[in-house]
């Protein structure tokens, strides 16, 4: 019975935010805007190049009590951060 309930998972949306080439505080602000638009359970995916934002977006995620699903960085400095609302 509980398994059946677990299968009834509501559809999860993925919201993409492209902040490549943007500087302080735009990636942080756009992340927050996207998280406000997202429904609980939705995934917010941010792509950017501003180095400090790669460190600071996870700080915001922690402060907001949300889960950080992963951080990836390419050799050219472009990073991707995934957050679960």
């Amino acid at each position, binding site marked *: 019975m509980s398994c059946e309930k677990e299968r009834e998972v509501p559809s999860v949306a993925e919201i993409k935010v492209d902040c490549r080439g943007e500087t302080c505080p735009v990636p*942080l602000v756009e992340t927050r805007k996207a998280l406000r638009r997202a429904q609980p359970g939705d995934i917010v995916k941010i792509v950017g190049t501003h180095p400090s934002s790669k460190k600071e977006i996870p700080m915001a995620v922690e402060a907001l009590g*949300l889960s950080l699903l992963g951080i990836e960085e390419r050799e050219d400095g472009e990073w991707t951060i995934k957050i679960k609302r």
Partner: protein
Amino acid sequence: MKCSQAAPDVETGAAVADRDVAQVEGEAHRRKPEKITLIVHSGDFDKLYSAFIIGNGALSMGMEASMYFTFWGLSRLRRGRLASGPLSKMHLLGLGKLMVKRRMRKQRVRPLEEMARDFRELGGKIFACDMTMDIMGIKAEQLHQELIDEYCAVGTYIREARESTVTLFI
């Protein structure tokens, strides 16, 4: 099972306590957030940037934020004047500001007008000092009223500041 009479009460109590702890942990971010209050006294272009960057950063990181505009800062809330202030240093009759603005565009720094809209969109509050309005002869209709929450005095700043963990004078 010997304590069948007492057990249900104890278990219920423990279950409630566990649920409360889980709720507190799961909803930690829903507790009343910390707050930052900025006094924007300066009307300088660069200092207005500092104020909005700090305000927007705080909102983005889950804090509440209030900005209290007074004196030269309030003057920047007049329509079309947000970015019209001089640089606090190296203004050089406008030449320095021109160079800084060019560099900012190149680095894709967001314009002040957009930062102000972001601040409002993220739930930031803007207060306008009514004494400054009287001194400078500024009427509400001359101001960006869509940005302003309240026209008020020092008492409102103190109310905001005493609830804040951070307050800055810019």
